[in-house]
Structure formats: structure tokens, C-alpha cells
């Protein structure tokens, strides 16, 4: 750099003061930061393994390993299994979002964000919004592979779409639990440990694998209380038929409740991190 003569032009663009008066700062800044998150995902596609290979692996594992033993025919089992696996994998993917964020936030660029006049929660909201692409990809892969091995939607496309959106909404809300853990934990490994410890009872403690009537009483009670069970039942109902209204309401209430509790806690933890 030998031609450093003139200082940067200091009059060409509006100063910070003029610009920031524009409304909807949180939305605007979150969208800009979600863009950052998407670009990062595009540049490091290996981060997407858990939402691309894992859904396929799970179908293969459950269907061919357990399918024969659980239900009479693999096709019948696949019809109930696939919507449940979709829920299970999105729940796992929401843990991964917390892990990624724990790693990301240690980088100096978050210090820059925090020293800028932007909405305080925008870096978190932006990252989580950007990670919604992971859920979309997961659902596409899950359904695509499901179709390839014989899964069929028995209701109508709109209901199926509603199922996908509801599952994504639940995962989005649940993500804030892991964002909070990500903000409190020092290491990504700790987030993973805590996250998966919580994940196993939540995902396997459902009727994803086997009908609940074969379970001991205490486990049945947990399965019934488990919000993930309600999400799975809703997804099943909307894709292959069955009761929808009850479990759907339960899903929405749980989602909103989790969001209302964990979003403020996560933001607070983020702002307190030094």
C-alpha cells in the first residue's frame, strides 16, 4: 500500500445518524444478518450433512432394521414412520443450530455487531432465521427420499404443506432453547452434550418407533405429555390421515410457550456474554 494519499471521501453517503431513523430496525437488521448466515451455509455445505444424509440414514435404519418387526408390512410402517422421522430430524437439527451459534458467536465479528447501532437481538434472530434453510432442506430431503422408497401422502398437498410448516414452526421455537444453552455454554461440545441429553427423551420418548400400548405405564405417561408426540401426531394426521385438531392445538401452544420463555432468556444471555 504505497499510494495512500487521499483520505476516504467523507461526504458521499449518509452518516449513521440520518440512516438509523428508519423504522423496523429489528426486521431490517435481522434480514441482513440472515443473509450473512445463508452465505456462510452456501460456502460451507459440509455443515448440511445432518440435514441431508441423516434423514436418509434414519429412514433406512428404522424402516429396514425395525420395520418388519414392528408392523406387518414395511409400507404400512413407512406411512406412520416418515412424518415422525421428519419431526425427529428437525428437532435434532435445532440442536445443531445452537451448536453452530455457540461457535459463531465467539468470533470477533460478533463484537463488531455488538458495537454497532443495531437492534440488540438482531444477530441472534438473523442467525436463527438464516438457519431455517436447514429445516427446509431437511424436509425436502426427508419427503423426497420417503417418496423414493414408497411413502405416499394420503391426504392432499395443502395439508401436507401445512404439516411441513407446522413442523418448521415448532423447530424454530424449540431452537431458542438451544440458542440459550449455546449462549450459556463455553464450548460447542457442551451444547452438544446437553442438547442431545435433552433430545433423546424428547424424540425417542414418543410413538415414533412403536405403538405406545406396549410401553410400561410411566413411559406411556411421558410419551403422552411429551410435546414432540403431539407434533408427530399432527404431522401424521395432516399427511396420512387421522385426528389433527387436538394435537395441532397442543403443538401451537407448546411452540408459542417455548418461544415466549426462551427467546427473551436467550437474548438476555447473549447481551450478558462478555
Amino acid at each position, binding site marked *: 500500500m504505497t499510494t495512500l494519499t487521499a483520505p476516504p471521501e467523507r461526504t458521499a453517503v449518509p452518516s449513521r445518524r440520518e440512516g438509523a431513523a428508519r423504522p423496523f430496525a429489528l426486521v431490517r437488521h435481522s434480514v*441482513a444478518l440472515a443473509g450473512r448466515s445463508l452465505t456462510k451455509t452456501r460456502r460451507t455445505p459440509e455443515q448440511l450433512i445432518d440435514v441431508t444424509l441423516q434423514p436418509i440414514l434414519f429412514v433406512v435404519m428404522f424402516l429396514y432394521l425395525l420395520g418388519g418387526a414392528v408392523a406387518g408390512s414395511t409400507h404400512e410402517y413407512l406411512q406412520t414412520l416418515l412424518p415422525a422421522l421428519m419431526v425427529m430430524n428437525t428437532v435434532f437439527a435445532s440442536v445443531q443450530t445452537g451448536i453452530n451459534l455457540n461457535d459463531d458467536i465467539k468470533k470477533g465479528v460478533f463484537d463488531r455487531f455488538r458495537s454497532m*447501532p443495531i437492534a440488540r437481538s438482531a444477530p441472534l434472530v438473523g442467525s436463527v432465521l438464516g438457519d431455517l434453510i436447514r429445516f427446509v432442506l431437511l424436509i425436502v430431503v426427508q419427503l423426497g427420499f420417503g417418496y423414493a422408497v414408497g411413502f405416499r401422502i394420503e391426504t392432499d398437498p395443502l395439508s401436507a404443506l401445512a404439516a411441513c410448516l407446522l413442523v418448521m414452526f415448532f423447530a424454530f421455537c424449540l431452537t431458542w432453547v438451544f440458542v440459550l444453552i449455546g449462549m450459556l455454554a463455553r464450548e460447542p461440545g457442551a451444547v452438544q452434550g446437553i442438547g442431545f441429553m435433552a433430545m433423546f427423551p424428547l424424540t425417542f420418548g414418543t410413538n415414533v418407533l412403536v405403538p405406545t400400548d406396549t410401553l410400561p405405564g410411566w413411559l406411556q405417561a411421558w410419551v403422552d405429555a411429551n410435546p414432540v408426540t403431539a407434533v408427530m401426531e399432527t404431522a401424521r394426521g395432516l399427511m396420512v390421515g387421522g385426528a389433527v385438531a387436538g394435537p395441532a392445538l397442543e403443538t401451537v401452544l407448546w411452540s408459542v410457550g417455548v418461544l415466549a420463555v426462551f427467546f427473551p432468556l436467550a437474548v438476555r444471555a447473549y447481551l450478558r456474554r462478555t
Partner: protein
Amino acid sequence: MTYAFRAEGLVKRFGATVALAGIDLAARQGTVLGVLGPNGAGKTTAVRILATLLRPDEGTATVGGLDVVRDAGEVRRLIGLTGQYASVDEDLTGTENLVLIGRLLDMRTAAARARARELLAYFELAEAAARPVKTYSGGMRRRLDLAASLVGRPDVIYLDEPTTGLDPVRREDVWGIVRSLVGDGVTVLLTTQYLEEADALADEISVIDHGRVIAHGTPAELKQRVGGRHLDLRPLDPARLLDSAGILAAVAGTQPESPTRGTLTVPVEDDGMLTAAVRRLDEAGIAVAELSLRLPDLDDVFFTLTGHGTAAPAGTGGAGEARTAKTEEAVR
């Protein structure tokens, strides 16, 4: 007097560690304050408080008259931060980094792009603009980091060790940038471990150690505090060190010190001293490997003020202990 930023009595503890023990820092608009201190002195902690990233436990700090805790949102509109560790995104390209910051500062996309292009050209990063930052060299990253803190044309810029890890040419480049910013009326807080750098750039210097300001003044004032010039002598034959010390003591009227093995140094009071020393050494038949008259540098300032050298982290002794020990050994 109006200050662009001012910190008074800042205290910050991390558990049992006292990072800042009541520190005062201030700079008038359009000047450079150099904050000079060894590792762990509290430089980064002070910068983070002034940049609204940390709350002080005690004391107050203002930027443009606004309190960094109470009016943090307003303060953030005035400042630009280049942290000690790269605060740009490794996975984004140079352009993407700067455009993102422009967007976050509520510039329109076209304006953000124009500003990014302008800064990338200014920092000679135009060719690398479309490459992800992880492919950049250390110097390029530093420059992009500086560019990033200038996107919003801040009034006050914090540069936390901006030249650490840069080669001498790149360091000079950064110095040039700092000077041109100041020419523009920007106020700069620059932390450094390089005395030469503070001397070259700062209007005033605060020397800090263990979270306290141990000296403050212009570079010239600080130099004055350690006295005038010094005479350094290294006899060719180390066995003649004691004889040499005797001669220097006689011409200078004070006992010489021995900063490194085999060398002696005494303060110089009058100009005739050098010739007197040369004559006496010659008479005594002492061959000289090195004899020089040296102006004090800020290393001397630091040594005089803290009793240990700048390279030595607090508590490990290092240069300071070595100097006293060897003086005894050499001059006894």
C-alpha cells in the same frame, strides 16, 4: 476542554482478576491517544468498555459527552472498533463483509456497495474483494478490519493493537492510515505494545500497567521524565568491564548500569563527557567494541516507571530483574 472520549476511574474485575484498577483515559477531538502497556495491562478491557461491549464495575466513560452505559445506543453511532482479534467474517468475501456492515448501518444497498468499493480500493484490497476472507494474509485481514470500522464514518475509532503481527512495511501503512484519519478530524484510541508506534502516532500517551495509568503525557514529556541522553559502552574484552565501569563512573559522577551482559550505560550530563570517556579508555588501553550516545526511547520510560521491561508480562520479572542483577554482578 472538550473531549472526544473520556474515561474516569474505570474499574473492571473478572472474578479475582482486577483487569482495571481505576483508570483515566481521555483524548481531545482529532487527536491520537496511545495506550501503551504490556500483555495483560488492561488495554483490551478499557477499549471494550469504551466500545460499549463491557460494563465497568466502577467509574464512568463518555464518548462525545454520552455515557457508554446509559446512552450506549447513541455512543454506538459515533464509534468504530477494530478489535485485537479480527472482527471480520472469515467465510464472507471482502465486499460482502463491508456491504453487510453498510446495510446494518441502514445504508441503501447501492450506497453500501459504493462505500465498500471505495474503501476496498483505498486499502488496496480491490483485487481480493471477491475472495473469502479466510484466503487473506494477516496484513490483508487487518486492512479489511480497519476498512470495516470506517464504513460508517465514525467520529471516534478504537484500534486495539492494529499492527501486531504485521511486517514493518505493513506497519508503516497502518500508521499512514491513522495519520490520514486524524487529518480528517477523527479521534483515535490506539493501544500498542510498541513504544516506537506510540511515539510515532500519539499526541498523548497513557502508559498502563496492572490496570492503572502509571504515566501520562506527550511523547516528549515522557522522554524527559527518564532524563537526557545515555552513553552506552561495550568493551571488546569482557574482562575489562570493571575497569571500564570505573572510568565511566569517574567521568559521569554516577555508577553505570549494565542493561545486558557486557555493556554499560550512564546518563550523560554534559557534552564533554563523551570525549573524556574516549580519552580515558584509550589511556587505560581498553579496546572498545561499541560506544554510542543514545537518546532515551520509550522503553527507558517504561523501565523507569515500572521497574520491568515492556516485553516482560507482570510478575515474571524478565528484563527488569535481569538488569538489576547484572548491574550488581558487573559493577560490584
